[in-house]
Structure formats: C-alpha cells, structure tokens
C-alpha cells in the first residue's frame, strides 16, 4: 500500500534536511516527469518534497551579471518574462517547447535538468549559454556547469541530500544571441528526436568571434560540440561554415535506434538543425546591432 508522504518545505534548508534524512524522498518540482514515472511504477518515493513553496526556487532574478533562475520556476512564467525573452530567445524557445500549454504551467527547467533525459529541450540551450547549476546540500552550496550536471540517462551529479536550487546564466556579451531547434514528427506534444542549440557572438564586421553548439537526443547526455563551434568561429557564417558546423555536429552525434528515430536519421538531422539554429542566431545578432 501507499507509504508516501507529502512535504512542502518553505526554505532550502528545510528541503535539504528532508531529502537528506530520507533517501527515498523525491523532490517534486513541476511533476511532469516525476508523477508519470511514479504512476508507471518506475519508482516508489517515500515522500514527495514539493519545493514550489520555497521563494527562491520559483523566481527569476536579473542583475548586471545575468539571470538567476529558480529551479522550480514554471516554464510558462519563464516564457512570459520579458527580460528572459530578450536576453535568451533561444533558451526561451527551448523552454516553450517543453510540452503543451498545460505542461508549461507545471514543468520547470530544474526538473528538466534533474530528469536528465538525453532529449531534454532546455539542457542544450543552457549549455550554449554557459549556465551554472547552484546546488544546495547538507555541506553547503556548490556550483556545477550545466554540461557536467547530467551524467547519463536519468543520472545527475546530485548526491544524497542535495537539491538543485537555481541556474545562473551569465549575461550574454554584446553581439551575442542564441537559438534552439528540435525535430519532432508532429508540431507539438512530442519528445525531441534531435535538438540543437547554438549561441553566437558576432563582431561589428559580422565575423563570428565566439560560438557554442550543443545537440540533444543523440547521445546519453546533451553534447557540447566544440568542433561545430570551431567551424563557425572566424567565419561570416557563409554556407561553407554552416555546412562545416553541420558536419561536425553529425560527426559528434552517437545516437541510438529507438521508437522515435533511427541512428542515420538522428545523425543527419543533428547537422541540419545545427546549421539552421546557427543561421537563426546570426539573424538575431544582426537584428540587435
């Protein structure tokens, strides 16, 4: 029979105490993955620790250095945040792609990271924006780069008693913009078959001075692809550079065959989306200059 408790701590310290004291407890943010897995019998938590009543987990703070995003902030709140949309249009696109309007009302970036799906939409977009995960635990706070947070499907660096509190995203340097694209068979409601995020910095002359490229659903975790970034840096994002980035992304991909796509398909489309996302990011920079 059910032996689950429901807890709704109001501070990070209280939440850490709860999850530290009970290794069977699960942190409940939006619940859009956790509750599905629970009902499918994949895990039987001894407690749901609802962190949405902790103020700093559900807010967005913008300062000179960038943004601190509460890990349990609902996707819809992020998408409605004007400054988020202005600073990180690609990240907001990725957030907006997490499920339906209904799911948007519940799902969170922190939950998306902690669920550690290789196909998570936000992870790539956070990686290209150099986001850092702020983790609270019984021994205090630590910071982990987003690209190191997930270690495999369903696995993260979180240790017993630890809680993802927020995500810090540095303010983009001038001339920088991001973009995220994913391929799904329908127009909505699917899990990414492939995803690609690109962040670009262009000089006043239109030459790319910095770039980050990350791809999703093509490896056990989201992949940062420096080779694809290298293909863009120093170019004016001409066709050859875009093709170079696409080829690098395809080469980096090491996908599997499953019900959502084949190896060959994912590899090819990873390149296509990388190229397109780079072009969109570049257009965004130009639109800002």
């Amino acid at each position, binding site marked *: *029979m*059910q*032996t*689950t*408790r*429901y807890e*709704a701590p109001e501070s990070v310290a209280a939440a850490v105490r709860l999850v530290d004291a009970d290794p069977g407890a699960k942190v*409940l943010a*939006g*619940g*859009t993955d956790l*509750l*599905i897995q*629970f*009902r499918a019998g994949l895990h039987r938590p001894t*407690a*749901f620790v*609802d962190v*949405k009543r902790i103020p700093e987990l559900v807010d967005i703070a913008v300062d000179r250095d960038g943004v601190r995003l509460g890990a349990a902030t*609902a996707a*819809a709140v992020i998408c409605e945040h004007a400054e988020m949309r202005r600073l990180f249009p690609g990240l907001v696109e990725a957030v907006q792609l997490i*499920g*339906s*309007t*209904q*799911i*948007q*009302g*519940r799902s969170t970036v922190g939950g998306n990271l902690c669920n550690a799906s290789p196909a998570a939409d936000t992870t790539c977009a956070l990686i290209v924006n150099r986001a850092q995960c702020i983790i609270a635990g019984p021994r205090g706070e630590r910071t982990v780069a987003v690209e190191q947070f997930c270690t495999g499907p369903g696995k993260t660096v979180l240790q017993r008693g630890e809680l993802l509190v927020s995500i810090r995203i540095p303010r983009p340097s001038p001339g920088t913009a991001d973009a995220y694209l994913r391929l799904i068979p329908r*127009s*909505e*409601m699917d899990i990414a078959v492939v995803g690609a995020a690109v962040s670009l910095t262009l000089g006043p002359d239109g030459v790319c001075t910095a770039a980050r490229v990350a791809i999703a659903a093509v490896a056990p975790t989201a992949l940062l692809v420096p080779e694809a970034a290298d293909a863009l840096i120093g170019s004016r994002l001409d066709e050859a550079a875009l093709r170079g980035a696409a080829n690098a992304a395809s080469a980096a991909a090491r996908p599997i065959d499953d019900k959502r796509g084949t190896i060959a398909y994912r590899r090819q489309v990873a390149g296509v989306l990388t190229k397109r996302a780079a072009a969109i990011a570049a257009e965004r920079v130009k639109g800002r200059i």
Partner: protein
Amino acid sequence: MAKVHVRTTINGEEKEFLCEPADSLLGALRDAVGLTGTKEGCTTGDCGACSVLMDGRLVPSCLVLAAEVQGRTVTTIEGIANGHALHPVQQKFLEHGALQCGICTPGFIVAAKALLDTRPNPTEVETRYWLAGNLCRCTGYDKIIRAVLDAAAALRPEA
C-alpha cells in the same frame, strides 16, 4: 499512512477534502469533491481532458498532487459559466457544433478560457498551438478553432 487534509478554493467556494499524499488533483476533484466534469484521458499529461486552472494558470490536473492545492484556487469546467450565463466559449462551442462525443470538451473549454483571459485577440495559429495539448479525435479541430476564435470576437468590446 495519514491522509492529507486540504483546504482550498474550488470554483469560488471554500472546500476541504481528505486525500492520499500521492493522489492526483484529478482524482480528488472527481472522487473526493465529486466534480466529474474534469475528465481522465491518459494520466500522463498528453491529452488535456483533465485541464483545470490553478491560481489562474492552465495545468493538467492529472500531474498535480491534490495536496499541492492547499491554499490555492482551482477552477474546473463546472466553474466556467457565470451562474446561469454560459461563458462565450461554451456558447460558441454549442453554436458551432464544436463537439461530437464531448469527452474532450471540458478540457478544451477550460484551456480556451485560459487563452482568452490573457490574449483577447489570438490568431488561428496561436489558438492551434495553445490548444495543441488538448486532443480531440472526433472533430479534426476545425469547428473547435472556429468556436474559440468566434468566442474571442464575442468577448472583445465592440469596436
């Protein structure tokens, strides 16, 4: 294990109910509160039949724990009409024949109301994407989209 005692506001009325810690809001609404207008189609957040508003925001009640609504407000399909006056979305669904079997209709109406609460003048494309989380298998969506757009027009102040 002890049941959770939840005090909340549902459709403008104070309500109290008991639930298991792991019960969904959907289950509590239907069984503990007796509001069966909110429908269960999948319990995985993929069909939208269980859509409700929580603190004014559209959520899938199958993926909300009942215990979470402590102190919050919930609006279900039963709370969409204003007394005897149907909400324009409800009225337009009737006028356009925007339902066939009707099982998805409560979820669509709640979701469409949430849309029009924040966007009085949605385009067809916006409306389709907003409602993409509500599955309908009978209508092909055509009449539903027309009904929502027509309701939007009816809600806008006369130009």
